[in-house]
C-alpha cells in the first residue's frame, strides 16, 4: 500500500455510476441537502455492466487518484443482471491490478440504491478519506516517464 501523509492533498476522484440506482441516489443526496466532499465527479452510465474496465485505466492515466464504481444492489439491477457482470469483472480486474502493482484501494466498488441518498454521501466521504491517505497516484505517470514509449514521443 502506497502511503503519503500530505494532509492538504485533495485527491481527484471519478465516480462511474449507473443511471438507475446510484445516479438517482446521488440526486437524492442533493434533494436531501446532505453535504459531501467536492472531490468526486460523476460520470453517468446506463448500467455498471456497461463499464469497460479499461476506462478505469484511462482515468488513472489522466490523473485520477481514486475511482468509485457504484450501481444497483444485487437483484435490484434495472437490467436484471448488469451489476452481477460488473461485480464479477471487478473481482477479476482487482486481481489483475494487484498483480501489476496498482493499489486496489484506489478503487471503491459499492452499491447505492436510488433510496440511499445518505449512503452515497457516506461512500463519497469515506472513499475520499481513503484516497487522501493514499496520496497522489503517481505510479502511472512515473511509468510513462521511465518508459521507452515516452522517449520515442
Amino acid at each position, binding site marked *: 500500500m502506497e502511503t503519503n501523509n500530505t494532509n492538504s492533498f485533495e485527491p481527484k476522484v471519478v465516480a462511474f455510476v449507473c443511471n438507475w440506482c446510484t445516479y438517482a441516489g446521488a*440526486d437524492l443526496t442533493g434533494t436531501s441537502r446532505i453535504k459531501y466532499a467536492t472531490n468526486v465527479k460523476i460520470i453517468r452510465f446506463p448500467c455498471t455492466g456497461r463499464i469497460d474496465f479499461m476506462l478505469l485505466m*484511462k482515468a488513472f492515466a489522466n490523473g485520477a487518484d481514486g475511482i468509485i464504481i457504484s450501481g444497483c444492489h444485487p437483484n435490484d439491477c434495472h437490467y436484471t443482471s448488469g451489476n452481477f457482470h460488473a461485480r464479477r469483472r471487478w473481482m477479476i480486474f482487482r486481481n489483475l491490478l494487484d498483480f501489476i502493482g496498482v493499489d486496489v484501494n484506489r478503487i471503491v466498488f459499492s452499491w447505492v440504491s436510488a433510496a440511499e441518498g445518505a449512503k452515497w454521501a457516506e461512500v463519497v466521504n469515506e472513499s475520499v478519506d481513503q484516497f487522501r491517505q493514499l496520496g497522489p497516484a503517481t505510479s502511472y505517470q512515473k511509468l510513462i516517464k521511465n518508459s521507452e514509449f515516452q522517449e520515442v514521443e
Partner: protein
Amino acid sequence: MARIGVFICHCGENISATVDCEKVAKVASEFPGVTVSVDYKYMCSDPGQNMVKEAILEHNLTGVVVSACSPRMHEPTFRNACAEAGLNPFLCEMANIREHCSWVHEKSDATTDKAIDIVRTLVEKVKRNEALAPIYVPITKTAVVIGGGVAGIQASLDIADAGHKVVLVEREPSIGGHMSQLSETFPTLDCSQCILTPRMVDVARHPNITLYTYAEIESVDGSIGNFNVKIRLKSKSLDEKLCTGCGACIQKCPVKKIPSEFEQGLGKRTAIYVPFPQAVPNKPVIDRVNCTYYIKGKCKVCEIVCPTKAIRFDQEDSFVEVQAGALLLATGFDVLKTNFFPEYGYGKYEDVIDGLAFERLASASGPTKGEIRRPSDGEIPKKIVFIACAGSRDPAKGIEYCSKICCMYTAKHAMLYKHKVHEGTPYIFYMDIRATGKMYEEFVRRAIEEDEVKYIRGRVSQVYEKNGKLIVRGVDTLLMGQAVEIEADMVVLATAGIASPGSEELAQKLHVSYDKHKFFSEAHPKLKPVETNTAGIYLAGACQSTKDIPETVAAASGAAAKIAGLFSNDLLKRDPLIAVVKKCAPPLYSSCTGCFMCIPVCPYQAIDKEEIKDRSGNIIKTISHINPGLCQGCGTCVAFCKSKSIDILGYNHDQVCAEVEALLNEW
C-alpha cells in the same frame, strides 16, 4: 466544427447560492467548440427555453448543454425545446450542477470549480453525440392487472370500459380482497360488501376482462408495450366449464373444521370450498393440504355427489401466456400478526383479536351473523378495549411508519360495537388520532360525543387474564401518566398494515423497486404516484403503502387512466439509446470476430447471429446482430465485447473516454 451552446441555470437561488453561475458561464465560453455560453435565473421557464431555442437558430448550434438540475428531472423538457428549434433532441445533454453540486457542497471556489468541470465534461460528450431517431414499437393493448382487490377491480373496470383488454390475475379463489371482508366502511358506515360485490360481478361479466383466479405470475419478460406474462393457474381440482356452482360438494365434504381464512379463523370451512358466499367466480376449489383424498388417498365424496362430474383430482397446474402492453400491480396489504407482542396476549387468549377479525364479527355475513360475540364462549362482551398502533409507529418492536387506516377503523369498530351492544362500553387506547380525510374528523368526534367511546391517550403495557376477564393495564398520559386498569371482556388490536406476502418475489420478477418494508416504490412520490420506475408497470392501492378505500380507488383509477393513455397510441416512442454492432466497408464488413460472448450475457435475448453473404449467397462472415426492438440499452454486451465492435448509442466509447479525459484534465 462543433458549435456548442452552454446554458447555465441559477434555478432561482438553488444553484447560484453556492455556485458562481456567471463565472461558470464565462469559463465555459472559452471551452473549445463553445459558441455561446449564458446564464439565466430559470432556464426551464418559458423565457429560459426560448433563450435555448433562439440560440440554436441564431448560432446554428450543433449541440446544447443545459447546466441545471438532474437529467432525470428536466432532460425531456430541454430535449423537446431543442427539437422545437430544429435541433435533434439527442444533441442536448444536461450537466447536473444542482443535485450533484450546488445542493451537496457549501459555497466555495471548489464548488464553482466542480460545476465548471461538470460542464466541461458534458461539453466534450455532446460534441460526440449523434443525431438519433426515436424507435417506434407497436403496443399490445392488453393490460395485466395483478391482484383482484378493490384496486384491481376498479382499475380493470376502468381500463376495460376504455375499450382495452384486461387480464385480471388473483391469487385467491375469489376476487374481492380485504374489502370483501370488511363490515361497514368509514366514514359513511355503508356496507362494504354491498358496494363491492356488484363491482365484482361486473368484472366477471365484462366482455373485455379475462379473469384468472387461483393464479399467480410465473414470469414476466419484455418491456413497455410488449410484455410477455406467464401465468400459473393453480389447480382447482375442478373443471370450471362443467361446474355450475351448485354447492352440493361443499355440503357433503366431510372435512368441515378448517379455520376459514376469509373469516380470519373465526369461522370454519370445508376442504372443497368457496371463500365466501358472494365469491366471484362462485365455484369451489379443493384445498389439497386438508382434503382427505389427497392425504389418505380415499374419500372422493365430492366427485360422487357432483351432478355435472366436474371434479378433477388429477388436474395439474397449467400455464397461460399473455401478451400485454402494461402491467398493473394491485397486490394490496396484509395485517401484521402481533406474535412479537407477547404482552398483549395475541394468540394466547382467544378473546384478543385483530382488527380484521373484528370486521368479520361485525359483518352481517360473518360467523356470528353480525352480532358482537367473543370468540371464546360466544358471550356478548360488556367492555371492549381497542388498542391502536399495535405495532405501528413503534421502531423498537414493530414498524416505524403509521399504518394510516387504524385510527379510523378503530373509531368505526368502537362505534359499530356501541350500535350493536347499547349497554357496552368501548375504550380506545391511542397515541394520536390521525383523522385527515374528508369527514374523518367529524366521524371521530361522533364516536366520542354521540357514541360515548372512551378515548384514553396512552399505551398499554400488558394484557392478562384474571377471573375470566382480560385485564388491560395501561397509562393515561393526559392524567399525568396515571396508571389505568380496565377489566375487559375482549381486546381488539389495531395491528399494523404490512406489504402482502410474496411482494418481494413479485417485485424481483417484475424488476420493480420496493422499499425496506417491501412496499412497491412509486417512480416519483409526488408527480408519478401510480407509476413504477420500470416503464409500463404501474401500481395502485395498498401495495404501495397502506391506504384507505377512497385513496385506493383514486389510485386505481389514476393508474387505469395512465394505462388507457398509453394504449391510446398505436406505436410507442422509445429512446434509441441502444446497442449496435459496428459495421464497415468490405472486405472487413465488421470488426466483430464472431466470438458471440455477447449473446449469453444479454438479459433480453436481444442478440442473435447475422450472416453476411456475397452476391451469390455464400456466407462470408457471421457476426452479432442486435434486435433494436428488444435491446434496452444496458450495455453489458459493450463491456464484454473483446474487439470493441459493439457500441451503445448515447454512451459510446468516444463519449465516455472524452468524458473521463475532460473530467480529469484542467482540474
